[in-house]
């Protein structure tokens, strides 16, 4: 990497917002550099519910957000259809739920322009047989599911096609300021240890829950709260549509289908540092009964993984309930803090990422004196290769079509063949990085099936050695890192059959291989 790069705009953070922003700017002809301290979607964008909100969830708590969601979800369905599964959604109340909330639901949806329709209970049970027999009211809404990995990877790929550069594993070390201006941003690649500096006309902080920390490094102050939300993934898909609890938004009230699985959540737990997120047994035990009331099958479903994401809540006043703090986004121009070329975009939702990017890009362009108008409102998002492999069920389909028996499956649960792993590692190498097990797992379905990576991790490691991508005892470190990382998501859902799987994994990796015996 050359020292002292120059760019028009430096975007910090490679989540939905950051990648959406560089695409928006690139399409207006602005030269950007995106830096991400870990990997694309390492933050909330890779750890959310994947619900493309119709807005109905926010009709009572935040009607303005509800309207934004309605408009933006319509746009994404039209402009990035390959990232969306238009499942539709239901709002479902069960015996004991608040009658007034149910009664007001239709009117509130209408006020926000959200199309809704009452569904007969009998029909609802036909549509979604997993619904509770205690169901008392059902409304349909235009909810959908979105694949956030595909979305961000495709946004970045299109931006790169329009001249944007991106650096992963690169974090901010410090901001070098003159009196009113950030002159240089000092960065470090934490893999290679290499340090360098960037000169940019405008710097945008799009670091989600980390926004407060990054702003503070620049000497600006914003009050953000970190609210952890945990989710659990079922082994099989339980429902066709998104199922929301018809009540004031709270914990454990949404079940979202995604490919071959369903995802249930979420929770809301205050944490002081986004790095400390991890799903806990207590959260899962607390939210499951709510889910079971709506979908009784959740009581005996097998879960394969839990994960947690962190919501940045931009704080106006401290309140006891984090859901009362606005989920609308905040675009903060730090010229008010005396830094003329620095702004922060945070908060919001995945569903509104494009709008957040547009508004931010407008402000950036005003600053740069660029007159081009936003194109992401009208130009479809091209589907690229980079985001292709995360879709569950895609690799089995392709593998069967190809019928090449020498293309061995490395992951049998999710049927990921060698050719897909090779394709992804080539992709990572093109970006100048060494593919690790963890990254291969993030970019594919490898390790996401019921075996939790116990077997495919071994097959992948052996394969990477055969390809010369691992040397000396790197494979042992890779295995340890991969297994420990997977464990975070498995630990809270260990009961029932998953415990046998964990035992098998430990018998193999510890009992036989002794991987725990050295660091």
């Amino acid at each position: 990497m050359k020292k002292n790069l120059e760019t028009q705009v430096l975007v910090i953070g490679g989540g939905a917002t950051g990648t959406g922003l560089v695409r928006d700017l690139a399409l207006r002809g602005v030269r950007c550099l995106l830096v991400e301290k870990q990997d694309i979607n390492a933050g909330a964008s890779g750890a959310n519910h994947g619900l493309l909100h119709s807005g109905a969830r926010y009709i009572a708590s935040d009607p303005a957000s509800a309207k934004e969601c309605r408009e933006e979800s319509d746009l994404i369905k039209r402009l990035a259809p390959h990232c969306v599964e238009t499942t539709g959604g239901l709002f479902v109340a069960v015996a004991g739920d608040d009658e007034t909330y149910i009664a007001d639901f239709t009117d509130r949806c209408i006020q926000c322009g959200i199309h809704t329709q009452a569904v007969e209970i009998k029909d609802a049970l036909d549509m979604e047989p997993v619904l509770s027999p205690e169901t008392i009211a059902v409304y349909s809404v235009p909810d959908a599911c979105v694949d956030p990995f595909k979305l961000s990877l495709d946004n970045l790929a299109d931006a790169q096609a329009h001249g944007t550069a991106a650096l992963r594993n690169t974090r901010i070390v410090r901001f070098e300021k003159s009196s009113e201006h950030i002159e240089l941003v000092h960065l470090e690649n934490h893999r290679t240890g290499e340090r360098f500096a960037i000169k940019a006309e405008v710097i945008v902080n799009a670091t989600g829950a980390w926004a407060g920390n990054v702003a503070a490094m620049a000497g600006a102050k914003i009050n953000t709260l970190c609210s952890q939300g945990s989710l659990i993934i079922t082994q099989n898909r339980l429902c066709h549509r998104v199922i929301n609890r018809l009540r004031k938004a709270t914990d454990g009230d949404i079940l979202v289908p995604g490919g071959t699985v369903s995802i249930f959540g979420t929770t809301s737990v205050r944490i002081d540092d986004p790095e400390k997120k991890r799903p806990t047994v207590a959260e899962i035990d607390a939210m499951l009964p709510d889910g079971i009331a709506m979908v009784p099958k959740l009581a005996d479903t097998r879960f394969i993984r839990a994960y947690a994401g962190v919501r940045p809540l931009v704080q106006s006043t401290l309140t006891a309930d984090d859901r009362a703090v606005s989920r609308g986004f905040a675009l903060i121009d730090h010229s008010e803090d005396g830094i003329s070329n620095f702004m922060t975009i945070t908060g919001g939702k995945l569903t509104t990422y494009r709008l957040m990017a547009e508004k931010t890009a407008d402000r950036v362009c005003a600053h740069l004196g660029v007159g081009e108008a936003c194109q992401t409102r009208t130009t479809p998002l091209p589907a690229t290769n980079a985001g292709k492999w995360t879709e569950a069920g895609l690799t089995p389909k392709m593998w069967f079509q190809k019928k090449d028996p020498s293309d061995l499956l490395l992951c049998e649960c999710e049927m990921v063949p060698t050719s897909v792993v090779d394709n992804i590692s080539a992709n990572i190498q093109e970006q100048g990085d060494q593919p690790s097990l963890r990254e291969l797992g993030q970019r594919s379905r490898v390790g996401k099936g019921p075996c939790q990576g116990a077997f495919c991790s071994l097959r992948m490691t052996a394969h990477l050695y055969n390809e010369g991508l691992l040397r000396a005892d790197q494979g042992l470190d890779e295995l340890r890192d991969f297994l420990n990382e997977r464990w975070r998501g498995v630990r809270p859902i260990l009961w029932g059959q998953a415990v046998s799987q964990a035992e098998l994994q430990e018998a193999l990796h510890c009992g036989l291989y002794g991987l725990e015996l050295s660091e």
Partner: protein
Amino acid sequence: MVIGAGMAGMAATLFAAQQGLHVVQAGLTGEVIYASGVFDLLGVYPPKERRVRNDPWDALNELVTAEPHHPYARLAPDAIRTAMDTLTAYLAEIGLPYKGHRNRNTTLLTPVGTVKRTYRVPESMWAGSQALAAKAPCLIVDLVGLRGFSARQMVETLGSAWPDLRTATIDVPGTSVHGPKYPEHVARMLEVEADRERFAAAIATHVNGAAYVGLPAVLGIYQTSEILADLEKHLNARVFEIPTMPPAITGLRLKEAFERHLPVLGVEAHYHHRVFDARPLPGGGFKLQMGKSEPEHSVLADRVLLATGRFIGKGLTPKRDGIHEALFNLPVHQPKHRDEWYAGTFLAPQGHAVSRAGIETDSQFQPVDAVGRVVHERLYAAGSILAHQDWMRTKSGVGLAVASAWGAVKAIAKQVATSS
């Protein structure tokens, strides 16, 4: 009646039959396919300090002093040694010889390139520990299509300490399609002499003076000794097997050998049968319902030895509200809350609290309740279902199964003798 067909169930059945007891055995042997086939006694102690032990008897001494509730502490070291010797003597008799040092652990190469300590290895793995000890010129061979077994991985990982280690990759002759290869498939093929010769010929071109040749564990299921001898003759080198990841044949060999030979000792075996229900009878014995997928018939038993294993074996049922024993609803020693079952890191050296949960027994291997009272006068337990042990982290799975089976059978025999 022995319930369970894992290592503890098999060993208990053998020991009981040798004692002249009339034995009925029922249990699924499916999980044996996960067994590595090597017999650990005690390879690491204490796990928290990651102390790898060359002398298992020394380690055992420390363990029984530090952990008086450990199942090993219920037995004299001599009894443990006799139990292991009795089992390996029997296995040698039925064609599955095991090797090891009298007082020391031996070493074993694993496919990820680590070196494991274990007490007894199948004869087919024995040369590997000698090659490793001497750092002798050695060729490791892998097979096209056998996933998760890379010779290159082992050589990369071990090579800095063992410069004379080389690799070769061969196509399994006679298999035309380039699909995946499974150890069982290759093993069955090698049982045929002509195929074995072609296999040896494919390796021979790579030997180039290597004194040892390491292969994934595929050398037959029934005639491993013959296949090994044949290959050594063809290759003019010592040949050894390296365990493979599941599905492996090392466990299958044990399963097949036991299933074929235990009935010869007069054992009434119901493999592939599960016990669905067990009820104590007023007279003191038990009535057990068993069958393949549903209860088909019942057995009356004077005494029951419970060797149903932990979670994989389905001896213990882990529910969200706690761990339950599946057949007799025995009290299970366990952490208070599910939150304490597992450590935050998978590879945390001290292991997971849930692994030490299980059935508590008295010195006669009879399950007891929380205050130490025997639950059923004629019920015994052995193997991994026992509490206060973590076989995965101390590398003691087979030793624990066999030793506790020995202890339980001795206690049963004593009870039978005094009651008649």
